[in-house]
Structures are given as structure tokens and as C-alpha cells.
């Protein structure tokens, strides 16, 4: 961080040091970006809007995972299971208890947070490898639960969900649902940015950086590890609920381990311990299959296409691209897109004198 701060950029008060958007330009860019996003239903087609919605939903869930992995240093390979739990919880709350969808989404987040705390309880004693393996077990146990609990998930048939509605306004198309997702993205990301400025947020970072020192400083390790798990699950639950009311159908098979790995990929590619990075990583992961598809379409009909069966095996190519992207980022850009973005900003801020 400090390496990319240009000289002459001094902070003279704690308030300045703590601010989320440090410069005037960043605030202008934020408002302009939001305005552009709100106007986008007028500018983009439904397919592109769908991609934006997906980026927002995945970004929220990835942010939760980043709080757990990037800020607290705990590994979870079961994030998709919690995401799925949120999706089913929201559908179940609406159908079983007739709660309006607008309230189902936050309630589903809370329910998922509770489940996360249950699985987080063993996590309080574990770290590193053992935790990774415990969350792997959570993934399989929850997946099995989805297939088994017909009353909750609709069993193998899946569950049909109702569109988001508030008052008389129904968000059943991409053009309207985008506003719901944008609202949640803004709230959740500001929430995370603020969390990281509080004592609890700094405690999480301390647990990551050196947990023994943190404990000596009076930070309750078990409490913060479990809390971090709960927060991550809350974000996953909100993301899952938004996903359920976007697709209007939740299937039991969707939340497999590959999906969990994709979430981890988003966090790695975006940048561990970076809030905006979570969104960048989500955008990368959502757009990567599109790029693969575009590449295959470009070669379609040619000799390469026939020799390699590109068209028929596009789903395998996408999986391979995910794996390759994760490995290449780890090898060549381990700090993720967020770090690259900071470098680009610093370059232009200092241009043409690079010091």
C-alpha cells in the first residue's frame, strides 16, 4: 500500500487516514459510476444487464469470503454451500411463512449467518489446513442436506421462487432487478468498508497477521474467528438470496464444490484483503466464460475447431480457464487485480516522474 502512495500525499488527521474515499477524484468517480450504473438499463441489452447483475451478486458473496480469507486469514472451501443455503432459505421463508420477498433476503442472510456460526464453532480451534478440510466437509454435508431436506429445498426438483416486490413495484426483469442488486452492493460494500475501520475489523486483521500477538494484545481469538465465519456466511446468504430471486428457480445441484472454488478464485484474482478487489475478481470470474465462449465462436467452423471439438466441450474449456486463471494469477500477480489497479493509479498520478 505504502509503496504505491505518491510522495507529498500526507495525512494530517486521523479522520483523513480513516476515510473510505480518500481523494476528491475518487468520490467523483464513485458518483459518476453509480449514475452510469443506474442509467445502464436504458443503454444496455438484457444479456449485458444480466452479466452486471451476476457480477453484483457474486461480488457480494466474494466480499464475504474475502472478509474471512483475506482479512482474517481463515480458509473456507465451502462458500458455495452457504450461498446455496441463503438461496433456499429465502425461497423457503417466502413460501412457507409468506414473508414478503423484500424482507426474506435480509432474513435469509441472518439464517445463513447462524448456520455459518454452527460450522464456525469448530473453526474457532482450527486454522490453515485443518480448517480448509473442515470447510470441505461442510460443503459436502450441506450439499447432502440440500438433496435430503425436501421441506426446505424442494428436493431434487428444486424450488421456484417469486420475484422481488416492494409495495406495488415488482422487479421481475433484468432492467428492474439491477436496481435491487445495485442497492445491496452499495450497502454491503459500504458496510464492509466501515467494518474494517472499527475495532472489530482491525481485530480480524490482527488475527490474520499474527494471531499469537493478537491474543497477547487481548483479542479473543475464538470469538473473532467465529465472528468472521458468521459475517462471511451472512454475505454469502444475502448473495444467495439475491441469486434465488433473480433466477426465480433454485436447483439442488448448483452449489457444488466447483462453485466454491470459483468464489475462492474471485478472492485470489481480485486481491486478498481488498474490498474493491472482491468486485473486480467477481467481474473477472463472470466475464471469463464469456471470453472463452467468444474465443470459441471466433474459431468456430475452422480447422482448429474441428480438430479440438471446441464447440462441444465449451463447458470443460470454461472450467480449465478457471483453473488456469487461478494458477497464473498466483504465479504472476499474487496480489490480484486490486494491486495492479493501485499501480496503474500511482503511475498516472506520478506521470511523467515516477518518484
Amino acid at each position: 500500500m505504502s509503496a504505491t502512495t505518491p510522495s507529498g500525499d500526507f495525512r494530517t488527521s486521523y479522520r483523513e487516514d480513516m476515510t473510505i474515499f480518500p481523494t476528491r477524484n475518487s468520490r467523483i468517480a464513485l458518483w459518476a459510476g453509480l449514475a452510469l450504473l443506474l442509467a445502464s438499463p436504458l443503454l444496455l441489452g438484457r444479456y449485458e444487464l444480466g452479466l452486471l447483475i451476476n457480477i453484483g451478486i457474486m461480488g457480494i458473496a466474494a466480499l464475504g469470503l474475502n472478509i474471512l480469507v483475506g482479512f482474517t486469514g481463515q480458509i473456507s472451501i465451502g462458500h458455495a454451500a452457504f450461498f446455496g443455503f441463503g438461496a433456499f432459505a429465502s425461497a423457503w421463508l417466502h413460501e412457507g411463512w409468506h414473508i414478503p420477498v423484500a424482507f426474506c433476503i435480509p432474513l435469509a442472510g441472518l439464517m445463513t449467518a447462524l448456520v455459518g456460526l454452527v460450522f464456525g464453532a469448530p473453526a474457532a480451534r482450527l486454522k490453515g489446513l485443518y480448517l480448509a478440510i473442515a470447510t470441505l466437509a461442510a460443503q459436502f454435508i450441506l450439499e447432502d442436506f440440500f438433496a435430503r431436506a425436501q421441506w426446505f429445498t424442494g428436493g431434487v426438483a428444486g424450488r421456484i421462487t417469486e420475484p422481488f416486490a416492494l409495495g406495488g413495484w415488482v422487479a421481475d426483469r433484468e432492467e428492474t432487478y439491477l436496481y435491487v442488486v445495485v442497492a445491496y452492493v452499495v450497502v454491503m460494500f459500504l458496510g464492509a468498508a466501515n467494518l474494517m475501520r472499527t475495532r472489530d475489523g482491525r481485530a480480524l486483521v490482527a488475527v490474520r497477521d499474527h494471531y499469537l500477538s493478537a491474543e497477547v494484545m487481548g483479542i479473543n481469538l475464538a470469538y473473532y474467528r467465529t465472528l468472521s465465519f458468521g459475517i462471511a456466511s451472512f454475505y454469502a446468504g444475502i448473495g444467495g438470496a439475491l441469486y434465488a430471486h433473480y433466477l426465480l428457480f433454485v436447483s439442488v445441484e448448483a452449489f457444488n464444490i466447483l462453485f466454491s472454488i470459483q468464489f475462492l478464485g474471485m478472492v485470489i484474482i481480485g486481491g486478498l484483503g481488498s474490498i474493491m478487489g472482491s468486485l473486480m475478481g467477481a467481474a473477472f470470474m463472470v466475464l471469463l466464460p464469456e471470453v472463452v465462449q467468444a474465443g470459441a465462436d471466433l474459431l468456430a467452423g475452422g480447422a482448429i475447431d474441428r480438430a479440438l471439438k471446441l464447440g462441444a466441450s465449451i463447458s470443460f474449456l470454461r472450467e480449465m480457464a478457471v483453473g488456469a486463471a487461478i494458477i497464473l494469477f498466483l504465479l504472476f500477480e499474487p496480489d490480484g487485480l486490486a494491486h495492479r489497479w493501485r499501480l496503474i493509479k500511482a503511475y498516472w498520478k506520478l506521470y511523467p516522474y515516477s518518484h
Partner: protein
Amino acid sequence: MDWTLLLQLTLNGLIVGALYGVVAMSFVLIYKASQVVNFAQGEFLLVGAWVCWWMLTEWQLPFWMGFLFTLAFMTIFGMVLQVMVLRPLIGEPVISVIMATIGLGIFFQALMKWIFGVFAKPFPPIFTTEQVSLLGLQVQTVYLMSLGISILIMAGFAWFFTVSKHGLAMRATAFDQQVAQSLGISVPKVFAMSWAISAVVSAVAGVVVGVVNGVSSALSFYGIKVFPAVIVGGLDSVVGAVLGGLIVGLLENWAQYLDAGWLNWGNMYTVAPFYALILILLVKPYGLFGTRNIERV
């Protein structure tokens, strides 16, 4: 009580468990030597089995020749992976190393699906007699072969680590890298060797499973079943890995027996080991035979 079924399932459990034990052993080998948790262990089985299948069907090689070629290929495969992907990550945080092996896992799984398709393909028959009678139970010859090969590999590991020079060098590296280095052991070579051996041993297990059940992407699930086994046994104990594998193999078959007879929950065969895993982590976070880390500030 259906005693024949229980006995049959117990035997199945021992046979499958021995295979789990072999895979768990090669997993522990990598972990002990280079401190890497390999989430791509199942893909070693998958790649090895597919390569052997390809040699036998496309090239019409006799079994022993195709098998030897497979082993040679896997030696190089393991070394190349270690040198190209894992070596640059030495000193990086645990999460990066884990993610790299996960990335390798999904990459090779998808690659194999792309090249060989998604459907299970049977090996050409290797034995002429299909079944033999043992203690009144009908046992398939391939199962006996599988058990024999597992025991052979375990004996090989025992010899390697107690007698051979390279095995001792590997144990020394696992014990203390700096001391090993100062005694003239090349640590990078030991790392590469551990990956090569692990890949070869996993591939043998993969070929065995392939001969029994046919080759398909289901093979990579062995890499996931390894985790309950190594957690039961402790991540850094070779003996524990074998025992853990046997316990998991028996556990899933007995869970299936209970399930079929009384519970009727379904799917217990797959999930029971993971419940056991969570319970063990709650009670003994370092497994039954693992070393407990004592940390000092």
C-alpha cells in the same frame, strides 16, 4: 441381521480402504516432504488411469508395457508440476499453495473430460478368471489384485523410508530442512522426488480402480475421500494414513449397511466419512496420530 452382506461389505471396505490408504500415503508423502496440502491428489489417479487406458486401447500395448509407460509418464508429470507451479510458491501463505493445487485439480479434471469424454470407459480385461471363492464369498479377481498391489505399495514405502538412501534423505528433509541441507541433501531435489513418487503411487491406485470400475472422472473423488482418511490418521503420519484409509473404507461400507437396513437416509456411503471428519476435528484437532504443534512466542 444379514451376515453375508455384512461380511461382503466389510471385505469391500477393507479393499477400498487399502486403496484409500495408498492414496492417503502418497498425499502424506507430499505434505511431509514439502508442506503442501495437495488438493489435486485425485487428479493424479485420474491422469494416470487415463494415460494407461489410452496406451492399452489406442496403442494396443500389453498391460505390463502400458503400465510401465504410465509410471514413467507420471514421474515426469509430478516433477514438472512441482518445478513449474509449486516451486515458485515456496514461502507464500498457505492459502496460495492450497489454491494452486485446487487450480491444478480443476484444470486437469476438465482437461481429461475434454480429451476422453465424460463417460466411464472399461479397461481391456486383464485376468481370464473373473471370480474366485474365498471363505465362502465370491470375490472378483481384480479386487484381490487391488488388495495385493496395495499391500505391495505399502511394503515398498516401508522399505523406502527405513532402508533406502533417498527415503532417509526425504525423512531428514521432513524433519528439518536446514539441517538436511547442511548435511548435503538437495532439498529441491527431494521436493521434486516426493511429487514424482506421489504421482506414480497415485497413478497405480488410479489404474487399479480403473481396472475394477472403469475409468471416469469419478476417480478424482478419491482425492477428496483422502481428506477424512488423513485427518483420522493425522496429516503427517504415514502409518496413520494407512490406518485412516482402512477406517474410512470400513466406515463408509458399514454406514451403507446401516443405511440400507434401518435408516434409509440414502447417500450415507458418501457423506458418513465427512461427519466423522468434523467429529474428529472437534475432539482431536491433530488427528489420531498427527504431531501436535506446540507454539511459542
